[in-house]
């Protein structure tokens, strides 16, 4: 026996577990499941439901000798506690004896169930949980079979009580286990739910405005062990045993949460999280859960459209593709390959993106391809390739000894599940969290250190932290020696970034900068997360890369950088070389780079024809729209008739992610495969298949028959993706890596299908003798002097005006409308109240926006959502801009 383990006996089996383990977890080792309702492995135990009662005995100690008493056979005497104990709150101790299945324990659990059922309505036939309900299952396994209680005396509560737009509460069914309340408090950090009253009158309430205001509310329905909380869109949708479940990956943001598509008769009935501890644990956000209804939208394109006499009319695939082939060939003939260009959205799968660049590079012969429009406008991210977080990084375990530095990201809005994990690492597991940002965000509540810099000085702050690390001699000399070059030059350049000076520029206290630098550098593991509001310019990336390398937080698991990217496959788009200057796998192109998306959409680009797939630039600005109107020939691959598609000469209908298979690469570089869930409407094709057909019309002989086949070629052509055949990506997780979580108890699907594969960064490779990384220093843009007016921040909100969400009816009420968030004081000063309109102007551009007062916004700052109807903020801050100094006046 080592010091950190404890050996005990459960039902006659000897079990050795780490110290501090709870009996309920120890019993799982011998697969002797102790029934629970309130206990959940991800939350603190409370012992509310008393379902886990077991008999517990410990070795008797002689009071005089302080020695264990021995019986005649020389074995220690076990003294059982007179009352049963709750296995979920009792930690194990040495020599403990636990009786799970003793007659007395069974009797007690039977009693508890009879009690719970006295106020349960037993309306299982109409309950959405019926068939996958722990209360049903445990009643059958442990219950008394009949009740001595008079049915007429049952509790009566309202049956259909809406908790917000997304969740329905049936209070009669609730057994007050408080899993939902605790999830909201401990994990989501949105204490939106509470228990009101006591005893039999206790019930769940929400007093937030809007009701149950949380991005994670759907998870409470998952953790609910009865049918008390159910989701609005699945209400009476299907019985659990009628569902067919397909493993999938969420296509709404870069986190890449693993999901299960539960389908019936060709429709997605619900989306549930699929356990993957390395990505989303057992959670998903509400956008992922409820934002799938676009798949079944009646507005989906179902047949190719071709422009005839100025009108888009239905056509056959053959006709549409022939036209694309002829026109592209003619444009190439007349104006050369560089008269053609393409923009592919970062929502496409790796297979689509690979073939997209191959079509342009190999078949057409142009490098005019890009994915960076809209939210990814200025994205130019290779940090993941150099010092991205190491393979095997698992934020669900990051805790004591680790430091997480978040720069310029409102994670709760940009990447909700990443927020859960980062907040959990800090609040639950004791990681040091440093949240640097221009404004207060939800993460500040969990952060030990909040650094509030002036907008536009994120790079200065990063360099200040770096200089402070050097100043305080916290540099990881050995790590730099092994991995990087150019430290001396960097040191010299950093002399201009002395802490006092940086403090002056950024507005952050000098001591705080030093303390944060120290905390980050001294931590065993360090992760840097940077988001949209940090600005994503090359100077910032160089500074953060250097910070990771200089502090030695690179090239290992749980160390490195995470860029919070906007779309499901933003990472994959960069990996697959859908950029004008890089080939797949980040190799630079031979010769001259092509045009970037901004250049292609600038108007005077010289392009005659374009292929746009899965992205809608025309909705973003009138300038883009004008540029697209000026083209001779525009082909659009889309799900819906978007603004861009309306301008097209040929519109090709494609399948959504749920209707085809493929892979996405998430922001931790994890390549994950998703399966086909539902059939596509009408004649839609997968994007890669459309590209194969276009290539065929242009004379290429591509022989891809499946997404699987395209991936097989990627594994050959892109060294980073070696070994990532579908076969490996979909391999089931080994038994040792499975951990059971109670939300899956009784579920109609298994949660543990696959985990995905990460590709290694340069920093990891150079530990094994690969090339060293240069420590770069790029002078940041000069900080503009103080101007009068508000700092308007174009911020990304979870429910933005993206087309996919707009087509998902359930979340309609949550979608952000154009508005400006102001502090209460500023609103008073301007003489406006909630809903009043103000004119926001800058450099002759002015926009009218309704006011919303928000307590998180600081004085002098105004926050407005990006990517919403009409794109008002983008007009003021520019397509890739983050902030602008504006004038705000009452209209």
């Amino acid at each position, binding site marked *: 026996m080592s010091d950190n383990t404890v050996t005990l006996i459960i039902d006659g089996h000897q079990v050795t577990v780490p110290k501090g383990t709870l009996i309920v977890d120890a019993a799982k080792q011998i697969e002797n499941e102790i029934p629970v309702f309130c206990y959940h492995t991800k939350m603190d135990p409370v012992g509310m439901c008393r379902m886990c009662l077991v008999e517990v005995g410990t070795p008797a100690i002689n009071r005089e000798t302080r020695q264990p008493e021995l019986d005649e056979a020389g074995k220690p005497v076990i003294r059982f506690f007179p009352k049963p104990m709750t296995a979920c709150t009792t930690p194990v101790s040495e020599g403990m004896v636990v009786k799970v299945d003793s007659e007395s324990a069974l009797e007690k659990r039977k009693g508890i169930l009879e009690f719970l059922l006295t106020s349960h309505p037993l309306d299982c*036939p*109409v309950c959405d949980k019926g068939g996958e309900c722990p209360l049903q299952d445990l009643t059958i396994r442990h219950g008394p079979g009949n009740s001595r209680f008079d049915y007429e005396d049952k509790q009566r509560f309202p049956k259909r009580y809406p908790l917000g737009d997304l969740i329905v509460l049936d209070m009669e069914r609730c057994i007050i286990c408080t899993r939902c309340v605790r999830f909201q408090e401990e994990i989501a950090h949105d204490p939106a739910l509470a228990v009101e009253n006591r005893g039999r009158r206790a019930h769940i309430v929400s007093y937030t405005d809007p009701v149950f205001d949380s991005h994670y509310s759907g998870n409470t329905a998952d953790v609910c062990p009865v049918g008390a909380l159910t989701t609005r869109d699945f209400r*009476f949708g299907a019985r659990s045993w009628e569902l067919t479940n397909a493993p999938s990956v969420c296509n709404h943001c870069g986190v890449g949460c693993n999901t299960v598509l539960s389908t019936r008769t060709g429709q997605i009935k619900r989306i549930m999280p699929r356990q993957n501890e390395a990505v989303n644990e057992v959670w998903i956000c509400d956008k992922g859960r409820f934002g799938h209804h676009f798949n079944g939208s009646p507005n989906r394109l179902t047949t190719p459209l071709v422009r005839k006499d100025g009108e888009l009319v239905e056509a056959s695939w053959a006709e549409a593709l022939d036209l694309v082939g002829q026109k592209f060939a003619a444009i190439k003939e007349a104006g050369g390959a560089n008269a053609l260009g393409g923009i592919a959205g970062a929502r496409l799968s790796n297979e689509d993106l690979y073939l997209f660049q191959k079509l342009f590079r190999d078949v057409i012969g142009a490098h005019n391809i890009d994915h960076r429009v809209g939210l990814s406008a200025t994205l130019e991210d290779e940090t993941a390739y150099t010092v991205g977080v190491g393979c095997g990084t698992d934020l669900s375990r990051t805790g004591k000894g680790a430091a997480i530095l978040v720069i310029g990201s409102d994670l709760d809005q940009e990447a909700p599940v990443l927020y859960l994990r980062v907040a959990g690492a800090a609040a639950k597991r004791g990681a040091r969290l440093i949240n640097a940002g221009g404004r207060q965000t939800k993460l500040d509540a969990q952060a030990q250190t909040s650094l509030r810099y002036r907008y536009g000085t994120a790079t200065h702050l990063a360099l200040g932290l770096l200089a402070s690390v050097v100043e305080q001699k916290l540099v990881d000399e050995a790590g730099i020696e092994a991995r990087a070059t150019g430290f001396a030059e960097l040191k010299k350049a950093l002399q201009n970034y002395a802490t006092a000076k940086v403090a002056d520029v950024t507005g952050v206290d000098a001591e705080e900068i030093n303390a944060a630098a120290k905390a980050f550098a001294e931590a065993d593991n360090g992760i840097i997360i940077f988001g949209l509001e940090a600005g994503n310019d090359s100077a910032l990336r160089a500074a953060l890369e250097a910070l990771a390398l200089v502090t030695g937080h690179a090239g290992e698991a749980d160390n490195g950088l995470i860029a919070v990217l906007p779309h499901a496959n933003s990472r994959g788009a960069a990996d697959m070389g859908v950029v004008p200057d890089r080939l797949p796998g980040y190799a630079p192109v031979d010769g001259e780079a092509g045009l970037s998306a901004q250049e292609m959409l600038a108007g005077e680009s010289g392009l005659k024809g374009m292929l746009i797939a899965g992205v809608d630039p025309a909705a973003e600005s009138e300038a883009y729209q004008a540029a697209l109107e000026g083209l001779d020939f525009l082909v659009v691959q889309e799900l819906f008739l978007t603004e861009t598609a309306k301008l097209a000469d040929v519109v090709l209908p494609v399948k959504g992610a749920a209707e085809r298979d493929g892979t996405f690469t998430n922001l931790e570089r994890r390549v994950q495969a998703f399966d086909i869930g539902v059939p596509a409407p009408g004649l839609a094709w997968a994007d890669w298949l459309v590209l194969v057909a276009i290539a065929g019309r242009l004379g290429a002989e591509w022989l891809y028959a499946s997404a699987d086949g395209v991936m097989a070629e990627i594994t050959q052509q892109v060294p980073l993706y070696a070994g990532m055949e579908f076969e490996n990506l979909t391999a089931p997780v080994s038994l040792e890596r499975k951990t059971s979580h109670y939300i899956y108890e009784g579920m109609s699907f298994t949660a543990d299908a696959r985990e995905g594969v990460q590709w290694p960064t340069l920093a990891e490779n150079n530990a094994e003798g690969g090339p060293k990384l240069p420590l770069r220093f790029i002078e940041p843009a000069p900080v503009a002097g103080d101007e009068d007016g508000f700092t308007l921040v174009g911020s990304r909100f979870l429910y933005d005006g993206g087309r996919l969400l707009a087509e998902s009816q359930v979340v309609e009420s949550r979608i952000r409308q154009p508005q400006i968030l102001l502090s209460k004081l500023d609103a008073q000063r301007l003489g406006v109240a909630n809903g009043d309109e103000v004119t926001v102007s800058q450099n002759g551009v002015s926009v009218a926006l309704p006011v919303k007062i928000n307590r998180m916004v600081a004085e002098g700052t105004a926050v407005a959502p990006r990517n919403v109807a009409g794109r008002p903020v983008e007009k003021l801050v520019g397509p890739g801009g983050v902030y602008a100094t504006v004038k705000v006046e009452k209209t």
Partner: protein
Amino acid sequence: MIKEVVTSSTEIARAMGVTIKYFFTKPVTHQFPDEPVEVYPRFRGRHVLKRHENGLERCIGCALCAAACPTDCIYVEAAENTDDERYSPGERYAKVYTINMLRCIFCGYCAEACPTEAVVLEHDFALAEYDRWDAIYPKERLLEPHDASKVVVVRDDEVFVNVSRWGKK
């Protein structure tokens, strides 16, 4: 020789006797469908979806009948009652309820599974259709009031009616 003649004549006479005896008994053959057929009370014929006395549907769309069905011939889609549009008591009703009578083996498991005694196998067995698609009964055809069969009559023999105490001592 005489003995043989006598024996065979008696045999013929006896056989004719049987024939003549049946000639005077009531015929077994029913003139279906001109005359109604009698079935026993527990005969399992086509399904009927019952209603409560106040006219609301008994069916709550729980789909337990579909789950119990060994031939998967029942398809149910549930929806939510609203105060304006109420089909059944409680929250849930069957928006779609179809039974494929060609697949059904009339085992009665659906009626057994039904928690509200909504689906009942009644006595009609004359289910022939001119079109196979018509054999898939939509909810409107299954729901009471339905076209009761004119050609089936239920026997009311005491011995068969009073069976409620079967299996009990």
